[in-house]
C-alpha cells in the first residue's frame, strides 16, 4: 500500500466528483500515479451514476396516501371532538351571565 496514494485518495475522490483539479499537495503525485488515476476515473463514473439517480423515482408504499389522509382525518376528528363541547360550554356560560346580569340589574323604586 502506497501511503501517498492513501493520503491523496480523499482529494482524488473529491476532484473527480467536482470535476476540479486534485488539491495542490497531491496534484503532482496524482497526475503521475496510475493507481490514483484509476481511482479518479472510477469516482468520476460514480459521480455520473449518482447524478443519474436523480431521474429515478422509487414507488412509495401503496398505502402512503391512505396513511396520510387517515392521519389528517384523525387530527380533524380530534379538533371537532374538542370544538363541540367548547362551543356548548361557551354558550351556556354566556346565557348564565346574561341571566345573572338581568336578575342583578338595579331596579327603579316605585
Amino acid at each position, binding site marked *: 500500500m502506497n501511503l501517498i496514494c492513501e493520503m491523496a485518495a480523499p482529494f482524488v475522490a473529491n476532484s473527480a466528483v467536482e470535476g476540479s483539479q486534485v488539491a495542490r499537495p497531491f496534484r503532482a503525485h496524482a497526475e503521475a500515479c496510475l493507481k490514483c488515476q484509476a481511482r479518479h476515473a472510477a469516482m468520476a463514473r460514480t459521480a455520473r451514476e449518482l447524478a443519474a439517480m436523480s431521474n*429515478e*423515482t*422509487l414507488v412509495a408504499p401503496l398505502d402512503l*396516501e391512505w396513511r396520510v389522509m387517515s392521519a389528517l382525518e384523525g387530527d380533524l376528528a380530534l379538533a371537532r371532538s374538542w370544538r363541540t363541547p367548547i362551543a356548548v360550554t361557551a354558550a351556556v356560560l354566556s346565557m348564565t351571565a346574561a341571566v345573572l346580569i338581568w336578575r342583578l340589574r338595579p331596579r327603579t323604586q316605585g
Partner: protein
Amino acid sequence: MDMPQVERDKERELIARAQAGDRAAFGALVREHGNEVYTLARRLVGDPHLAADVAQETLIRAWKALPNFRGDAAISTWLHRITVNTAWTQRKRARRHSGLPLDDYIEVAAPMGADHPEMAGEILELRGRLRQALDALPEAQRQVVVLKDVYDWSHAEIAEAMGISVSAAKVRLHRARARLARHLEASA
C-alpha cells in the same frame, strides 16, 4: 424538473385549493409527489419502513404548513426540504431509542435491494454497489452526498437544512465522498 404550463397551472390550482382546506386537492398532491418524497426519504434513511414513516410524516407536516407556502420555490423543492428535516428528526428519535452513537445508527440499516431489475449488466452492478455503499455510510454523511451529488443542492442549502455551517457541510461532504470511494473500491 421543468413541467409543462398546463400542469403547472393545474398544480397551482390544487395547491390553492389545498391551502383553503380542500383535503381532496391535497390528496391529489400526495398522489403526484408521494413517490418523489418517498424516494428522497429512502435515499436519506436507507431502511424502506423508516422511509415510509418519514414520507408519511413529511406529507402531514406539509399539510399543516401549506397555508404558509408562498410558491417562491416549486412545491417539490419545498417538499424536499420538509423531507430532509423530517428525516433528521426521525434520525434523532431513532438514536435516542437505540442508544447508538449518531454516526453508527444507520450503519445497521438494511441494505437497499435492486429496485430496478430491468436494468442490466454493468450499470446495474455498479448501481447496486453504489446503493450498498451509500447505505453503508453513516447517515449524516449519506445525507450530504445524496443532497449534493444526487439532488445538486448547494452547500448553503445543505448547511441550512441540516443546521450546520457551510464549512462543516463541505468537510462532511469531503469525508463522505472519500468513504464512499473506499466502500466502492472494497466491493469491486
